[in-house]
């Protein structure tokens, strides 16, 4: 018995690059993708993890010391690196609770659908990582599996509700027939953004302003190209850190590399997940597809809209500026600058594409998001350590706007901490 336990402990200590392939193999078998496909999926996902690990290494090794230098030279206290949603998603998938949460979240969706608690059938398995992230947050704070499951299910229910509620809006504005968008971050930023947007339209004078999305896309286009954005940010940060010409150039290339390589690594992770995600989609379609429901898909479907794009591009420099001047903020925005379109998709639809109103609402949203992400940094860093992405006790803290600066997840964090304090 003892040797069995120590054997299990040995495997667990090997970390997500070993555990996740094994877990995915079993989940694949559960969904009937066959041994060969499931085995391959598992290995590909393991490789994706190794890749993400390498890129986070480049990010933290370069940006961490530079951020420290900026603190010493200018008193800019931006010591928490925004590693972006790819690292948050990877840390979530790597959490010990991930494997059980995928089937649980599927079953919860089906139960809600049958009981008419929701109209959304969420076939976007990839974005289940947001629910898992909530579970992982609860798990890191309390160490309880049951509490982790509770957090994930609560998060899922709220996201499905927001998806139901915004479905008529997005169907009309984006022309997405029969579709809703239960993407965790988009849904979490939506309600608060819509509230702020509504208040803005009530301010006299402001409600008459308009801007043209086409010309903004042309002028701010550079902020839409991650590689160039990484290069420029790297160069500026290198200069602020007081590096010499060589150091500044190296910093620029390294940050451009992170922006280009990170999505490539996540792509590998995704490729491993595709057979399972398709099997789950087909299963759900066959059993429940004939009802009068919304098909829940990735909010990525909506973010190409001209007004969403234009608003997000303007919000990139605004976010950086706010991060520098905002009292109490410690997050250096980086990875999730590319994710801003997702945060504002519902808000732009609500404001019928008025870019000036959307930018104002977005500015308030990123301000709140930076504060929450700062507050989330300690737990976010723990989650990354749990996934062995960073060395325990490393000097650099990690957060992200997508997971750390997300209202619903932040509420889960507070709920978990409260629970931990009481029990």
């Amino acid at each position: 018995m003892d040797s069995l336990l120590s054997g299990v402990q040995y495997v667990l200590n090997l970390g997500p690059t070993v555990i996740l392939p094994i877990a995915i193999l079993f989940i694949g078998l559960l969904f009937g993708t066959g041994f060969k496909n499931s085995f391959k999926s598992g290995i590909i996902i393991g490789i994706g993890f190794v890749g993400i690990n390498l890129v986070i290494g480049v990010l933290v090794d370069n940006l961490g010391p530079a951020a420290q230098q900026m603190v010493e030279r200018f008193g800019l206290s931006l010591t928490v690196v925004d590693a972006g949603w790819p690292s948050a998603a990877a840390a979530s998938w790597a959490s010990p609770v991930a494997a059980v949460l995928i089937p649980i979240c599927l079953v919860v969706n089906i139960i809600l659908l049958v009981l008419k608690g929701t109209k959304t059938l969420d076939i976007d398995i990839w974005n289940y990582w947001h629910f898992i992230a909530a579970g992982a947050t609860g798990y890191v704070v309390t160490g309880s599996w049951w509490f982790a499951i509770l957090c994930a299910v609560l998060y899922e229910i709220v996201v499905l509700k927001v998806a139901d509620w915004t479905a008529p809006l997005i169907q009309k504005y984006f022309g997405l027939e029969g579709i809703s968008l239960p993407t965790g971050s988009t849904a979490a930023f939506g309600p608060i953004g819509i509230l702020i947007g509504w208040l803005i339209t009530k301010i006299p004078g402001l409600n008459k302003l308009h801007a043209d999305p086409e010309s903004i896309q042309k002028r701010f286009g550079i902020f839409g190209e991650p590689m160039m954005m990484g290069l420029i940010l790297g160069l500026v940060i290198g200069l602020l850190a007081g590096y010499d010409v060589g150091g500044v150039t190296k910093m620029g290339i390294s940050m451009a590399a992170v922006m280009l390589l990170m999505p490539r690594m996540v792509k590998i992770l995704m490729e491993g997940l595709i057979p399972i995600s398709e099997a789950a989609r087909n299963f759900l379609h066959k059993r429940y597809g004939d009802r009068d429901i919304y098909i829940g898909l990735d909010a990525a479907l909506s973010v190409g809209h001209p007004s969403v794009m234009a608003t997000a591009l303007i919000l990139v420099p605004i976010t950086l500026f706010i991060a520098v001047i905002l009292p109490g903020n410690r997050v250096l925005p980086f990875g999730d600058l590319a994710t801003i379109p997702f945060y504002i998709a519902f808000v732009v639809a609500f404001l019928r594409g008025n870019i000036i109103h959307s930018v104002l609402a977005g500015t308030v949203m990123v301000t709140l998001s930076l504060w929450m992400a700062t507050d989330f940094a300690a737990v976010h860093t723990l989650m990354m350590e749990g996934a062995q992405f960073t060395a325990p006790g490393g000097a650099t803290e990690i957060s992200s706007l997508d997971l750390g600066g997300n209202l619903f997840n932040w509420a889960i964090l507070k709920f978990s901490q409260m629970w931990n304090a009481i029990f």
Partner: protein
Amino acid sequence: MTKTVLVACGAGIATSTVVCNRVENLIKDNKVDATVIQCKIAEVASRQESADLIVSTTILPTTYKIPALIATSYITGIGMEALDKKILDHLK
């Protein structure tokens, strides 16, 4: 001549990976001479000069000089064969 397909989505990761796989298999199975590039929709404007077809999972933010198809079918799983045919017609 080898044709180039740009597969684009909002973030250049999630939905475009699914579509990328589908289009790559489509090209291989039908022995079409084409390469697939995965990118963000915001990058399409600056890359269109060297491409022949855009396959996007998201709404198009502007009008492009080359033909563009919306690939929601590959994400929902409904009407995938019809879209296969449309893509092949553009590449042959």
